[in-house]
């Protein structure tokens, strides 16, 4: 590791990573921060991987984020800055991410045929276009399904923020639907019993009596509902220490400020804590990218929130030695049109948009694909299919993307219909 990173800040002589490792090795795990001991011990490449998806809801403009074309007609007033990847520029509203970009890769040539928000979101969350016969599971749901973490009583698939179409379990089952956290860092709603312990105990005993009466003559059917099982899991979760992963009071003021005091910033911090606790898939939504009007101001406002949060998340994961075991994907349902409309806005553009992906053992510092700076050519150079991107992520998780599952209608369906992108895999 270099003594100074690209911004010229000195890295500490003894990193947090070393302290953690030492503490673990010396059996001093009680000195470690109060998290699940097992999860805290494993770090680096051997740790089970997690996925963090940053969902840019509304369709973020590639020209105002990761694929600017300054000085051209389509570029608008957006300026670009250099990044830590040589020769690569991104929009100047993202200075912090520009510094971290060498640990990530940029894909500038994603292609899709879905220009509608609902259909586009479905496509970019599941890797499949909407189908009337069945509901596909989202990327996170598949990962949880294939790589369950049996030591967790908190949900393994979490969606932070207020997304209109949260990731679902689809034909793999509703229990894989993402657990919603609307206000990260504050108390997760519905987790506290509204009465004291004595009354809660009485309530639970009451429930047993009522359930028993109903079970007379219906035992198998009632068991099949898994109703009691679900309630028990819920009660377990309500009293679990693992819930602390949702709270941020224990984090330093400095770190919380680095993430930003926004819903999204806090969401990214909670996401890091969840990943640290062993949660398999977390999605954090930032909305407001559907700028059919006032595109440049809209994106500038969002960048003010996205830039510090994402950069801090990447840095934080790296410092805690979680970077090799966490895939971070920053993506939206489509991009925005090169042509600027009369309302100073940009419209939907699925044929050539961007995403940022990195960590989890993926190659860093790559830029794949390019869009036409003149905006004449609709299709990008070196197009990347969404299914291929997902197949790549499956590959790095060790999940066989081509594995077929028999869906409830009898139709076989692979996790991904694409092929992994060899360039992105280390």
């Amino acid at each position, binding site marked *: 590791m270099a003594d100074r990173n690209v911004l010229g800040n000195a890295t500490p002589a003894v990193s947090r990573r070393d302290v953690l490792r030492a503490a673990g090795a010396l059996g001093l795990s009680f000195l470690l921060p109060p998290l699940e001991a097992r999860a805290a011990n494993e770090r680096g490449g051997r740790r089970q991987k997690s996925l963090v998806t940053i969902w840019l809801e509304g369709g973020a403009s590639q020209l105002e984020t990761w694929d600017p074309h300054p000085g051209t007609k389509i570029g608008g007033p957006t300026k670009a800055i250099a990044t830590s990847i040589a020769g690569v520029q991104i929009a100047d509203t993202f200075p912090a991410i520009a510094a971290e970009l060498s640990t990530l890769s940029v894909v500038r040539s994603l292609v899709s*045929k*879905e*220009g*509608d928000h*609902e*259909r586009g979101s479905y496509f970019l969350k599941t890797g499949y276009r909407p*189908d*009337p*016969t069945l509901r596909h599971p989202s990327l996170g749901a598949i990962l949880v*399904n*294939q790589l*369950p973490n*049996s030591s*967790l009583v908190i*949900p393994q698939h979490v969606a932070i923020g207020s997304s209109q179409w949260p990731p679902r379990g689809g*034909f793999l*089952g*509703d*229990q*894989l*639907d993402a657990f*919603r956290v609307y206000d990260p860092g504050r108390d997760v*709603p*519905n987790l*506290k*019993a*509204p009465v004291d312990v004595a*009354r809660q105990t*009485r*309530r639970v005993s*009451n*429930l047993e*009596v*009522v*359930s028993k*009466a*109903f079970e*007379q*003559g*219906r*035992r*198998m*059917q009632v*068991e*099949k*509902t*898994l*109703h*009691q*099982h*679900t*309630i028990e*899991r*819920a*009660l377990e979760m309500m009293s679990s220490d693992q819930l602390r992963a949702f709270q941020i009071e224990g984090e330093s003021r400095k770190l919380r400020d680095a993430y930003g005091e926004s819903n999204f910033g806090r969401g990214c911090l909670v996401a890091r804590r969840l990943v640290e606790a062993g949660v398999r898939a977390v999605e954090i939504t930032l909305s407001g990218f559907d700028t059919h009007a006032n595109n440049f101001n809209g994106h500038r406002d969002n960048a003010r929130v996205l830039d510090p949060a994402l950069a801090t998340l990447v840095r934080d994961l790296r410092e805690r030695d979680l970077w090799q075991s966490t895939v971070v994907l920053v993506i939206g349902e489509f991009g925005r049109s090169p042509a600027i409309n009369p309302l100073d806005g940009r419209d939907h553009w699925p044929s050539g948009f961007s995403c940022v992906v990195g960590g989890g053992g993926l190659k860093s510092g790559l830029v794949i694909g390019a869009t036409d700076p003149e905006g004449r050519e609709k299709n990008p150079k070196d197009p990347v299919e969404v299914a291929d991107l997902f197949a790549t992520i499956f590959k790095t998780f060790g999940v066989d993307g081509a594995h077929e599952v*028999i*869906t*409830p209608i*009898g*139709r076989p369906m692979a996790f991904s219909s694409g092929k992994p992108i060899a360039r992105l895999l280390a």
Partner: protein
Amino acid sequence: MATRRFSRLKSLGLPLVVVLAVCTLVAWAAHSPVDWRQVRPAGSARTTDFRSPSQPPAEIADAVHAVDGYFESTWKESGRKPAPSADELQVLRRLTLALCGTIPSLEEIRIFESNPAPDRLDQWTNRLLADSRFADYFAERLARSFVGNEMGQVVVFRRDRFSDWLRQQLTKNAPYDETVRQMISGTGLWTDHPATNYVTAAIANGELDENKLAGRTVRAFLGQRIDCAQCHDHPFAEWKQQQFQGLASMFGQATNSLVGIEDRPRRDYVVEDRKTLKKHVVEPAVPFHSEWLPGTGTRRERLAAWITHPDNRRFERATVNRIWGLMFGKAFHSPVDDLPDPPSAADRDLLDLLGADFRAHNCDLRRLIRVIAASRPYRLDSIGEEASVAAKAPAATKSAHSQSTDAADWNKSTEKAASASAADSADAASAADAWTSFPMTRLRPEQLIGAMLQARWVRTIDQNSHLFVRATRFFQENDFVKEYGDLGENELDERTGTISQALLRMNGKIAADALKADPLNASARLSTFAGSDASCLDGCYLVVLSRRPTPAESEYFLHQFADAGPKGRSQVVEDIFWSLFNSPEFSWNH
């Protein structure tokens, strides 16, 4: 001097008048129509004990007897015994859930029980069918099966207008085949001619998706899933891709213009081959019985006539299957929209039986509902463990489904429990397949919130309810459904609950509001006005579960009342409400 006194009178009198008015209004609102003394205490005889099964009303008697006869012979053949008859209140609950999306109120239960007629359940069915809540709720359920759950492109698809139109059709009991024809072939602007929303719901990315319409139409109205054939010849069934394309071509001349949906008679339907990328024109064609296609009319009008042709048995079979599913919570044949080919005349099954009656009476949906509600399978209890025959193998779809979810369990103990009871549940499943007992099915989210909200009040929430009550219901329902999660288009699939839903039910605000001891709530009224502990307990059970407590439950809870004394009574009642709300009995239809 006089004016000063007058002004003092005014400044004193006016607030006093206002206060009096408010007190009067609140007292009037809080007035309970239910006389607590008339709620029968626990331990009294069940209302239907030893009452002989009633005769169905004359106008549907033939059909009901035919259905009952059909089941009696299938039960005899398979050697299975049907479950005993359900308590009438249980049937009342089923009817209210299926037709109005909620549970019976205490007020309704009292009215029902005070009717001594032996056919009071049939009378109540008619009453519910005439209630505006039926039209509202059933319209929404049918809309879901026609256009799914998606919101579509907002500007061209007005779901609210579509539901509203369906509601009107239901209210005036329009013949169902006419309704279907209007949906398939309607023209005009989707705001003025709301039936066209059926077509505009399939507009995506600015264009009409004929494939989606073809697949959806055949699923919803003929009960066949041919969507696989969109891309290749169907792997299991006889459908060929060419047949699918022919059907899609039926929608090929429909376009969205300034005057709404219209048909362009000279337009060709062009399809691009997925492999060769060559384009060719596809002529409109139906996959079988092309003689049912009329000679004249637009393509869509001809398709509509073909689908609803009097000889097209698939139409009534699909309709009966779906209505059966909406009433029972489980379709007669699952999946609800993928039926096997109609059997030959010698092997006519239940769908044909009810279907023929349906057609003979001008596709009368209400009649169909009344026949189903009066039939024996609908009146059976949901107890189902007297399998006297070896378990049949579960249907292919069921085993496939469990295969795909076996890796999904987060907790190993679930897997163990599942495998241990696999044989038994297969048994119970086949009992449900034979309809020897009423199936247990999970309530839809809106039914659950409807039930929770109704259980909060003693009076029925309906057109006549105070605006305040209905507004509360509207907002709470939408929030809850959003958090609870919509089940989606395939609402008759079996699903288990999630932990989030359990948390919402146990700790959520709506649940907490529903049971807390606030003056207008049922729980408070019961605890304050119900007189004896036993009648209070009865009231709790009737309000939430539509039944009276068993002796074991009574004994357990009456102890709590005794221990708590009059001061702790409201808390005891709240805790009872909580456990009733969170019991499997409440969340499931049975």
